[in-house]
């Protein structure tokens, strides 16, 4: 079996979509990992009410802390429980950050001023997104902010694995899982490919190293249109 890109690499590729002056919100899952790769000129928003805050811990930090656990005590000096993101992870302060209530936060999320990087359970060929639940009879609906983010962003990027754990395709003709928001996805970044949602259909723009377009198509239910300049994933 060929190797797919790691979650870190997918996150790195997704973060590359963020440009100087952009604002972004990073969802649960692979999108959270983007935080390590977001340039300083991009400001991160969190649903529970902060914008432009400092970094969470990166992979590099984590590896260092695993090797030198005594550094954790030192690190704790800078952690403040009142500065934490939507996933309750403590962030560090940064110049220019601001705090606000949830009304302001969700007006912001719906303002079409943020780029939203979301995870995904399924994406359809029209850009419909399923993210909050695998079935209609879910005893634990976890919609959270996902529907607001998918509807209200300037641009929606889904960063996810290309297939489910049982290898069934997650990029499908029509959603079989409950819809979260219709025709909202602009770009899909997976461990196998970068795919743009266009009015003509799904445009395969980049494939993972060592993978061919045919192999990616075989793991994709929806039909992929090959880009003229189809290339290997650029990191």
């Amino acid at each position: 079996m060929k190797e797919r890109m790691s979650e870190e690499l997918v996150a790195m590729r997704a973060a590359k979509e963020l440009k100087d002056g952009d604002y972004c919100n990073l969802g649960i899952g692979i999108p959270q990992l983007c935080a390590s790769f977001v340039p300083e000129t991009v400001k991160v928003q969190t649903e529970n009410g902060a914008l432009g805050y400092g970094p969470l811990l990166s992979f590099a930090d984590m590896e260092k802390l695993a090797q030198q656990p005594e550094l954790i005590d030192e690190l704790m000096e800078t952690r403040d429980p009142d500065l934490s993101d939507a996933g309750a992870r403590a962030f560090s302060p940064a110049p220019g950050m601001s705090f606000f209530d949830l009304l302001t936060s969700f007006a912001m999320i719906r303002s079409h001023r943020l780029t939203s990087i979301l995870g995904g359970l399924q994406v359809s060929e029209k850009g419909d997104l399923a993210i909050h639940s695998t079935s209609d009879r879910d005893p634990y609906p976890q919609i959270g902010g996902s529907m607001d983010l998918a509807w209200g962003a300037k641009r929606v990027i889904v960063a996810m694995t290309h297939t489910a754990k049982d290898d069934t395709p997650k990029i499908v003709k029509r959603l079989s899982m409950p819809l979260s928001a219709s025709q909202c996805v602009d770009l899909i970044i997976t461990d196998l490919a970068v795919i743009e949602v266009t009015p003509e259909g799904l445009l395969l723009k980049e494939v993972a190293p060592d993978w061919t377009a045919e192999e990616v198509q075989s793991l994709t239910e929806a039909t992929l249109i090959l880009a003229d300049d189809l290339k290997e994933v650029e990191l």
Partner: protein
Amino acid sequence: MKDKTCTAEEAISEVRDGYSIAINSWGLTGTPAYLLRALRACGAKDLTLYCNNFIPGISALEEIGLANLTGLLPQLKKVVSPFIGGRAFRNVLAEEEDIFEGRVQKGELEIETSSHGIYIERFLAGAMGSGGIYSPIGVDTVIEEGKEKRTIDGIEYVFQKPIRPDIGLVKAHRADRMGNLVYRGTSRASNPVVAMASKITIVEVFDIVETGELDPEMVVTPGIYVDRIVRIPEDDISSESKTNEVLKMIIKRRIEAEAAMSANPPQS
């Protein structure tokens, strides 16, 4: 000037069976854990709970001064929340989760879901006396079930009703004697909007300062919205210093666990 300060027990005595109660619950801080303990102690039942995130389980947290929503379950007939945890905690908290799931299956506990944005705009609608709003979120999804849909200027919307809780339990960092409130960092969250939408607002704070000590530009919740102010006693487990200790420990454990994981990533 009327004195709004009182004990948690006095404040919570406003709660009657069948009332709706709104709290902020998001992240490590900003949840009125001290008042929630008094709410459990008062025994009021058939309550409807509005909360941003309902994380069943974690009853052990109450013993270290944090909020315990599972403990409230026997008093609840309905939970309105955009995020029902549990799935994420299934392995560690199987037993407590069963209480939650069991009550839902037996029809003893009604769950009304939402999105965070819809949830907070419904509170604002309540605060403004609005009869309802057409929200753009949730068209063709589970959100629209049982609700009116309407196309306005070519775009579809779902009708959402206002939330106006009988009681709002609010956590602020500091109050003055008039009830003006300041928050700190992301513990602000839905607290200011809960204070505005609720018929009776009860606030717990670490600290009460004299009127005039808060910068008028920094007051987020003006005192008019605050009916009762409860100061968490300094020796209580939910006091600022003790809560901070506990939270720092939680953050530290989490970092240790993530660092260990990063050194030995699970095979995928």
